[in-house]
């Protein structure tokens, strides 16, 4: 008995470590590709970043000076290795526009983005699963017909347009929600701690500020939820439909188990794995969608920061944001794959 126990524990520990190292290696390859691809492409183009950084008024000497400061006068391979070593040391260079280290900027803007992303993610994950289950459970109902139309339309809606529509209806005309921006810290005298308006206002015990912070989030989060809802609902419905046709469902029914119990405790549990994989992937799309939504709602997060970098050919932030988002995306998908065995006992033995 003890012998088998030690054997299995040894067997399960080593592959897990190897798996972890493999995954880490994979993450490095992905990030390296992102860095190299964007670097190569950014140096292929004729636009001159030094010229842009120096400003329109600068003379030729000043442009040369800026070029030297930014290291743009070095040979390309040296620039590339410099950049790569910088990335390894978490030094992503300075932003031409804000004149701050990009790493500092990212830590400043990331929380506001995460606030939106997390709120949207949990909302559409829950809504998607609930509506997907109901749709699969009552496929002939009126609600199912409505959902089948709504979800086709849902994938056809560009997120930035949803944002504008929400602005036109709920901010410009009904005036229920603020048109743009997040919590105005100075106006409500809230201290900037985390960068998430809702949390900061709670930390300072300022309830009106918290109310405003929540209100400001409603429209951007709704835009993101609408753009992702269709995908998660359709997937939840199709996997649930498959599960409900399985024999164990018939068996449970024969045993006299209630329909509610069968749907939630038997079928849904088995249907969750593909749904969760999809949710993980959607998280990545959400990170892209947030950039668009932040631009629409002037939400001071990474997206708006990226947008300003795009406009000014500010490469360091662009590369840095790509790296940060890619790492987040890969890590989220890894975490998702760690969840599988927790949800599905069949996978634990493998």
């Amino acid at each position, binding site marked *: 008995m003890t012998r088998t126990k030690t054997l299995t524990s040894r067997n399960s520990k080593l592959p897990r470590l190897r798996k972890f190292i493999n995954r880490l290696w*994979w993450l490095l*390859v*992905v990030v390296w*590709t*992102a860095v190299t*691809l*964007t*670097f190569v*492409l*950014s140096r*292929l*183009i*004729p*636009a001159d970043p030094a010229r842009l950084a120096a400003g329109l008024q600068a003379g030729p000497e000043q442009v040369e000076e800026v070029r030297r400061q930014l290291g743009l006068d070095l040979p390309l391979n040296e620039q590339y290795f410099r950049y790569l070593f910088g990335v390894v040391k978490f030094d992503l260079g300075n932003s031409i526009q804000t004149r701050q280290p990009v790493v500092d900027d990212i830590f400043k803007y990331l929380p506001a983005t995460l606030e939106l992303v997390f709120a949207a993610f949990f909302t559409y994950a829950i809504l998607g699963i609930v509506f997907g289950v109901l749709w699969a459970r009552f496929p002939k109902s009126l609600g199912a017909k409505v959902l089948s139309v709504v979800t*086709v*339309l849902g*994938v*056809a*809606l*560009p*997120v*930035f*347009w949803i944002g*504008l*529509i929400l*602005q*036109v209806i709920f*901010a*410009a*005309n009904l005036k229920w929600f603020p*048109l743009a921006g997040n919590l105005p810290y100075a106006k409500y005298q809230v201290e900037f701690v985390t960068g998430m308006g809702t949390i900061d206002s709670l930390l300072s015990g300022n309830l009106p500020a918290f109310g405003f912070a929540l209100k400001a989030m409603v429209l951007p989060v709704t835009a993101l939820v609408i753009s992702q809802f269709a995908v998660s609902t359709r997937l939840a419905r199709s996997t649930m439909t498959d599960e409900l046709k399985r024999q164990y469902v018939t068996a449970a029914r024969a045993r006299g188990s209630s329909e509610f119990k069968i749907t939630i405790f038997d079928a849904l549990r088995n249907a969750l794995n593909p749904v969760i994989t999809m949710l993980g992937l959607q998280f*990545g*799309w959400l*990170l*892209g*969608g947030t*950039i*668009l939504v932040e*631009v*629409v709602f002037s939400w001071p997060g990474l997206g708006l920061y*990226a*947008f300003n*970098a*795009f*406009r000014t*050919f500010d*490469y360091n932030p*662009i*590369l840095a*944001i*790509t790296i940060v*988002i*890619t790492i987040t*995306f*890969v890590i989220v998908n890894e975490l998702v794959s760690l969840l599988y065995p927790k949800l599905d006992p069949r996978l634990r033995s493998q």
Partner: protein
Amino acid sequence: MKRALVLLALALISVLVLFPSLLATHDPFALDVINRLKPPSSAHFFGTDEAGRDIFSRVVHGARITIGSSLSIVACAAIFGALIGAIAGWFGGRIDSYLMRIVDVFLAFPYLVLAMALAASIGRNMGSSILALILVWWPGYARMVRGQVLSIKNELFVKASRAIGTNSSRILRWHVIPHASRPIVVRATLDIGYVIIALTGLSFLGLGAQNPSPEWGLLISNAKAYVLFGWWYSVLPGLVLVCVVGVFVILGDRLSKERE
């Protein structure tokens, strides 16, 4: 009935792309500052923009840019991806594992973010967004076609064909490509819709077409500043965009259901 509706919509889209001047009521670039930001009327179906240009005519002329570019993106991505996938699946072995590793790296990115970074690095114009989207879109096709080719390769009729001495290129042309092409077409139809959304997203961020182009994403991006004064400016062009994307998504959906 539904079929007729889809065909009608496709015909309308073709007219939009091929002969925009048949539908446009005004010159899409003609300025008329006195009549700026006028709501929709019989003279201007979609109203006018901040420079008094007729929004309806701009949308009509923008169709060629947006839809045309999206078609070419999907075509390039599908052809390139299919080629890579076919090579990987057909030859197998080391070529296969190398090519598929590259594909996996590409698929590990959140595609929209990668496309934004690429488009921003190449330079802000239509060409850069098109190239960026082709770069992020081909791996999906490579993965799919490889799977197709792998399964066809082991079919009895291919083995028989090889046994009677048919060479590789002939087998590819007569057996493999016809079998693999249908799923490609289904996927491409759906993808046209998704690419339109992605492309207009890039232009919305200023990474694609530049003013005064009537490209749809750019048009809606210009409208962003006028949500308070002119609802029609952002709502109506977006509505057309959604309808066009919807047609491709519904068509792709039906095609994939027919296959099943």
